[in-house]
């Protein structure tokens, strides 16, 4: 279980996180919704230790990772995968080398075994036979899927998705969502998804949290969120320009 407890984070004069509290249960898919620039990605980076909070705790299986040194953090990261908003593929490496990156660095598997795993993961994300393409030869949707193949290559227990469907067409969005659901079913992973894409959120979530103003203003199942009396929630899900939620 992941517990985010009273996490604060400030950048210069801007307080981005103002006491975030969240619990993510094992095997659960939690979607964090919120307007652009509200700090959703910052929150996600705290969960994988890319950022440390000014105060508060991030507990994974009961251990506060904000106190971890590099070695323990690396050991934890081997159990996690992250899909970045821009996919963050390594430009100088081809698809196979990108997906195999973690396997080559952290396992003693043979080249043949690694190639087999890479091909299997690429097939899972619907990109068989793309092993030797360079990232520059891929479309946005393909890059995201390769990013996902890389994130699941080490068979992580926890996957973090940073805006997995942003910039994709509806069909590709749907394909990514289905992939997410099948991974959850097949590998039983815990996922945290940061997005502002409501349709996608409804499809993949077990629960939804709405992040606004540096805090979680509402959390619940899809139905609870849709029926929430909170005006901030209602403004967000209706996509209204005017209301208590102000544009950043």
């Amino acid at each position: 279980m992941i517990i985010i407890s009273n996490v604060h984070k400030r950048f210069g004069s801007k307080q981005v996180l103002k006491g975030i509290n969240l619990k993510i249960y094992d095997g659960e898919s939690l979607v964090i919704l919120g307007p652009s620039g509200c700090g959703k990605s910052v929150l996600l980076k705290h969960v994988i230790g890319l950022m440390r909070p000014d105060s508060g705790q991030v507990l994974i299986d009961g251990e506060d990772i904000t106190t971890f040194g590099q070695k323990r953090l690396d050991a934890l990261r081997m159990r996690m995968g992250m899909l970045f908003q821009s996919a963050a593929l390594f430009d100088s490496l081809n698809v196979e080398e990108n997906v195999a990156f973690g396997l080559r660095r952290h396992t003693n598997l043979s080249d043949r075994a690694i190639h087999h795993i890479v091909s299997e993961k690429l097939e899972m994300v619907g990109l068989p036979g793309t092993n030797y393409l360079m990232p520059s030869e891929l479309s946005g949707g393909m890059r995201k899927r390769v990013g996902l193949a890389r994130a699941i290559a080490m068979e992580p227990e926890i996957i973090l998705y940073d805006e997995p469907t942003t910039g994709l067409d509806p069909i590709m969005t749907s394909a990514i969502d289905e992939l997410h659901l099948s991974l959850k079913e097949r590998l039983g992973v815990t996922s945290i998804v940061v997005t502002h894409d409501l349709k996608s959120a409804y499809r993949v979530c077990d629960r939804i949290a709405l992040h606004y103003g540096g805090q979680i203003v509402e959390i619940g199942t899809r139905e609870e969120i849709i029926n929430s009396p909170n005006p901030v929630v209602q403004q967000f899900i209706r996509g209204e320009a005017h209301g208590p939620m102000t544009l950043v």
Partner: protein
Amino acid sequence: MILTNIAKGLIESLGSMTILFLQTIYWTLNALRGGRFSAKNLFDQMSRIGVDSLLMVAITGFSTGAVLVVQIGYQFAQMGAQSYVGGVVSLAMARELAPILTAIVVAGRVGSAIAAEIGTMKITEQIDALETMATNPVDYLVVPRFWGCTIMLFMLTIFTNVIGMIGGSIVAIYQIGLTMVAFKDSILHMLLVQDLMGGLIKATIFGAIIAIIGCYKGFTTEGGAEGVGESTTSAVVVSIMMILAVNYFLTVGINNFNTAYLQ
């Protein structure tokens, strides 16, 4: 107030670069201890840094050697000191010109490329991606560039010396009217091993400076394409300034060492 801020920024940058250098040494030792040192990565960098700089370094070395002989050749001939031309040119090349000019060429070509590559990786979250895959960016990105740059600057400086001598000898023979034997004898008579070694030690240190500054500027890139552009320019400017400043102290140190122990 402005001067205070500039001084503060300078000290902070120097401190951060020193920390990056120490981290590079730590990760090098760590990789050697754990048998994880990637020779492939190192050779890739050596190839990119060295082979790709070869032509520019060759042109610079040849031109410098040739021009140097033109500048001093006639003066020396008027004084009847033609026999010193080869020696003086080789000394100037070995002690100062070859390491400095090679370093400036490499700083412009390689330092900027390192800053641009790492800067682009930073703004496209590739550095974050490395960390999420339990890979330290200094270990993966800086260590091979640091050693690639250091080793190749050493080798390129030897190359510049040789090419400079070839350029100088051609001008000396066909324009000044010296014989090849006289030019060569002059070099052998005046140029000592410590002169060459002094220049190569400088080159090696300049290589380290170029790599560390390029990587540091890459890691501190912020914003988008504009940020990458700023880092690239800054990497070249700061590297050249640092090379020129450090060169003075290295020259004094090497001269003192030679005087104390080798003469």
